[in-house]
């Protein structure tokens, strides 16, 4: 489990091979560990194609448990990649998530990173 407060940290992962092969063309080749994790990547990807999704919708979509989704969504929320709105639908509490601008940019960077890795390893 990640340490508290480590949510926004970007770590240089798989950086060496990428830099070695691409040279100066890949200066920003640092993997965002925060959305590299599968459930968090799923949350961000799902929200990228929807205005908002409820907790239950995300849970069904990602086939995960309440606890697991809660923990990962909180990490993304702490990093301000997603925003969370709590309301009541009649007497039933409802939690709604949206992707923030920072979250969308993080996903775009992550996609660029993956594409760059593929390009570089193909050239090699």
């Amino acid at each position: 489990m990640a340490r508290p407060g480590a949510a926004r940290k970007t770590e240089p992962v798989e950086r060496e091979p990428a830099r070695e092969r691409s040279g100066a063309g890949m200066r920003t080749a640092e993997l965002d560990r925060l959305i590299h994790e599968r459930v968090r990547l799923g949350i961000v990807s799902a929200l990228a194609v929807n205005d908002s999704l409820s907790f239950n919708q995300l849970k069904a979509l990602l086939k995960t448990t309440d606890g697991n989704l809660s923990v990962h969504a909180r990490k993304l929320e702490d990093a301000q990649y997603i925003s969370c709105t709590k309301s009541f639908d009649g007497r039933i509490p409802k939690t709604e998530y949206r992707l923030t601008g920072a979250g969308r940019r993080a996903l775009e960077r992550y996609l660029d990173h993956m594409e760059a890795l593929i390009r570089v390893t193909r050239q090699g």
Partner: protein
Amino acid sequence: MPSMTAPRPLHDRALDNLRYIRQTMERAGSFTAVPGWGQVAVGATALVAALVAARQATPELWLATWLGEAVVALAIGGSTMVRKAFAVHDPLLSGPGRRAGLSLLPPMVAGGLLTVALSRAGLWNALPGTWLLLYGTGFVTGGAFSVGIVPVMGVCFMVAGAAALLGPAAWGNWLMAAGFGGLHIVFGTIIARRYGG
């Protein structure tokens, strides 16, 4: 010390991650509450309707039989869709559900209006082809926001419609049986098995 298993190449892992993102986006952006078993039930009632319609003495009674079937199909399809939407937390009035519904609606309205116009003109033989073609068109357009098999089903309905419009008039009722009956049963079973009911 060398590891027992070779690490997965970076290239493969990156491809796998991109595939996961794409699949998640596809699922998240799709309307998944298409009721498979509901379609099978609609198909079964359509087969009965085809048999009953074939025995009618006048085109008006033939039309009434199929309009009755349309009401039954709408009730079965609508109720099973609402049930599945609740079960999979797929909203009907927002997101992909709303987009799918709005894309499905225009061909259905066009079909209704053409039914009135063609019946008034006494062009009964044109009805099966028109219905099948527009129903298929609705599923091709609405299916763009749903799981991949839905537009495929739409294309099959359009092919049946084209055959009914261009083929002999005697084929009409039986192409309706093949389309509204057979295609619903075949695709409904596939949808139910692949997409949970």
